[in-house]
């Protein structure tokens, strides 16, 4: 008998590129933004809230001769620097919010799918209720009520996304709970908690990881939307959504103020979608 495990290939960047160029592309874009966010103070030519020349067009210079590559906004803040610092905001809040939504959604989904009967009925109907509510209205209600802050963004995103995650998990669990290894666990007297989180959850990871990447993209958009509605991270913290919002009055004349943050949001969402597609591709290949 030869060792099967030994014949397993090591995953290298090159082999990954061959298997799924899409995944590598997505990871590259994400990696780029992560580096930018981490090293923001080193990369950014100006401080994010430093007032220079209002409405300066891209390529113009400050009075002391420094280049403002993407121009400045209506308060004279350098657009490039604000995008670079804004990456920090979105790359902090999007994963955090997704994580919160997942913790709640996965737990409820496991309970609904595994327990079934009236517990499932109750949780599912409640999820329907939330899902039936227009998301934007929901955000406005929450943030108007509790005020715009980072924490409230997490709460809003969790409330809006967890029912969808719950449904996904519930569906996977309904299938997995009939597996013989679940019966075997029950027959050795494992607790409900153990069966749900140790026996079932790891085997649901395939669809969940793909969904999480997609959802990271949605949350990025959501944070942008909230910023655009003026419900996001309070100013003057640089945030791509708020940048678009603040510049919308001048967008016809000075499009650079809105276009570049828009591109930043799109590229990050694209990266998450590419990663999700790539992971799905890889999981289908096996």
């Amino acid at each position, binding site marked *: *008998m*030869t*060792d*099967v*495990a030994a*014949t397993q*290939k090591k995953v290298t960047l090159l082999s990954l590129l061959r*298997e799924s160029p899409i995944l590598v592309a997505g990871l590259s874009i994400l990696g780029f933004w992560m580096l930018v966010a981490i090293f923001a103070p080193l990369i950014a030519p100006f401080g994010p809230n430093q007032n220079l020349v209002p409405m300066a067009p891209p390529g113009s210079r400050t009075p002391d001769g420094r280049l403002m590559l993407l121009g400045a906004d209506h308060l004279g803040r350098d657009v490039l620097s604000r995008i670079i610092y804004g990456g920090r905001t979105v790359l902090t809040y999007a994963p955090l919010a997704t994580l919160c939504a997942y913790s709640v959604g996965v737990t409820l989904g496991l309970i609904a799918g595994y327990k079934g009967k009236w517990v499932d009925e109750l949780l599912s109907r409640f999820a329907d209720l939330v899902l039936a509510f227009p998301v934007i209205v929901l955000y406005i209600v929450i943030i108007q009520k509790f005020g715009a802050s980072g924490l409230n963004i997490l709460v809003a995103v969790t409330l809006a996304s967890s029912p969808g995650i719950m449904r996904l998990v519930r569906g996977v669990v309904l299938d997995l709970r009939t*597996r*013989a*290894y679940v*019966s*075997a*666990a*029950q*027959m*050795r*007297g*494992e607790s409900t908690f153990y069966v749900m989180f140790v*026996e079932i959850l*790891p*085997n649901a990871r395939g669809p969940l990881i793909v969904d999480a990447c997609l959802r990271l993209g949605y949350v990025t958009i959501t944070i942008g939307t909230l910023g655009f509605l003026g419900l996001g991270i309070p100013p003057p913290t640089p945030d791509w959504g708020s940048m678009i919002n603040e510049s919308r009055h001048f967008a016809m004349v000075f499009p650079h103020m809105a276009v570049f943050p828009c591109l930043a949001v799109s590229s990050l969402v694209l990266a998450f979608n590419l990663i999700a597609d790539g992971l799905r591709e890889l999981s289908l290949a096996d």
Partner: protein
Amino acid sequence: MTQPLLELDRLSISYRTRRGAVPAVVDVSLSLNPGESLGLVGESGCGKSTIAFGIMRWLAGRGQIVGGRVLFEGRDMATMSPAELRHVRGKRIAMVFQEAMSALNPCLTIGAQLTEVLRFHEDVVGPEAERRAKTMLSEVRIPDPDRVYRAFPHEISGGQQQRVVIAMALLANPALLLLDEPTTGLDVTVEASVVKLIAEVSRRFGTSLLYISHNLALISRVCERIAVMYAGEIVEEGPTRRILTAPIHPYTRGLIACLPESGADKVARPLAPIPGQIPAPWERPAGCFFMPRCAYAVPGRCDVAHPPLIDDGTGAQVRCVRADEIGPERVAGVAGQPPAAAEGISVAVDNLSKDYKITPPGLRGLLPFAEPLRIRANDHLTFNAEAGRTLAIVGESGCGKSTFARILTGLERATGGKVEVAGADLGQLSVIDRSRDQLRALQMVFQNPDETLNPSYKVGRQIARVAKRLLSLGRKERAQRVQDLFAEIRLPPGIADRKPRHLSGGQKQRIAIARAFVGRPDIVVADEPVSALDVSVRAAVTQLLMEIQRAHGTTLILISHDLALVRYVADTVVVMYLGQVMEAGSTNQVFSGPHHPYTELLLKAQPKLDNDQGLDAPVEGETPSPLDPPKGCPFHTRCPRKVGTICEAARPPEQVTPAGHRMACHIPMADLARVQEKELT
């Protein structure tokens, strides 16, 4: 000499994978004359299905013909244009796959799907098409062609679906019918009737057959010639009779020796499993592919050069350098052991019943207080399992045997009656209410090797977890226990560090057996433990299960539809039909008769190697819906020995012989014995 209908000329097919090109089929040459039927047997992974897809030039993305030719009616398939190929597929070559349900479009009626074949290949439409479709449905023995013609696939049973697929294949009157495991997943009785049908229609329409299966016994019922495949190549090919009665290649011998012989039991002739497993394409040895598993291998001869396929002069070919040397003797099996002595009652089942409530179909189900429909899955079961011995429960799918297993193991609760184990009634006690000792005492081996182990964890860890839960062993002791068990199931200890997906089906099932025996249980329930495994592996796992059971003195409750296996393993047998016990007794009583008419039907449906007239088994009819079980005797709708209206009106009395043979039938046992005796002579 006529031109062969289909000729494979040194066909080689490879799959492109991450490991590079994997040869699935190597240098296969075969020829099939018009009207001839050829069987292709071998374990899973030997390349038999790949050949079928190769013939149709239907290899999905990664498959590729890398050498040789496929000649159909003298023409090279590789030179055909897509349009010609489309004409050949379906019209000249038709195919029947394993899963009938996925071969039929769930959105279209059977009629629409049948007439489409005629419209596409023969331009026949309208009433003429409908007439021909319905005629074909009655040709494939569908009792009510008009109804089935209008039905959707989900509205007919699995056996009928497979018949419809066969009808669809035959509609265009093809010259060649490719059958890829057409009866897998069907009940034995249904399987027997479908196989019979295939043999009949191919004879009537003069269709050539290429029948692919892992089941040698089934193939021998249909085919005139058999080709045995191993690791992508043919190792022996010849007339059916010659292959079955005088197999030469050690692999063919092995395949035959590991089938339980009808009439034999574990004492008379133990199974002889083929050791090891089929090598992966990248692990094939330099010489003979079968050498590592071969009992006749001689170093220096078998491992030097790859043996060619040699004509043996009797119209058969063998790929073995020692073909002339090895005698006709059988491979010796492991010595048999006498049945264990009974040591009292281990499980006492008394009037056990289980009802499932289901929501009525249609709009009525939406009403808040709709009366739920009841399905009686277990109907007043009464029998005992003796301590330290093996009790087998047999019956077709839907007879309630698995429901019983779930009640006994606490995964379901009984609706009525009792199951007594060690003085406690477990019928109402679900797993969460059972004490740790009750859990330890009763464990289970599940059917599907792919679902039985958690794919996320190393197998050693999964076994250790049971030792922790049920025996409260410390870390060191757990590791020791795992090691001991691995020795007992004869797997190298290194396997403990692998995840289930790196293991073969047989290995997974061994681990599952080990897991059941970790806590030294008093009773183990095995639900079809080997039915999903390859024939050669089946024998080894069965052997292992019996050994472990004997070593631990465990009571084994074996649930199976395989009568040959049951006869081989069990000490006592319970035969169930639609939730009721039809017959119960010692293995000898049940198998030597008098038989209950239902047991008789099951016995006749069983595919046998040594059965020349195997095809006359009268096994028509299917299990009625458990939602609306027949009144009186549940079996009266299919019973070939029905005596009259009493069978429809009254539940049959239970007859018991002094020796303990029980039977629920209106015909006195003495009379049954007499008619059954007469039929045999």
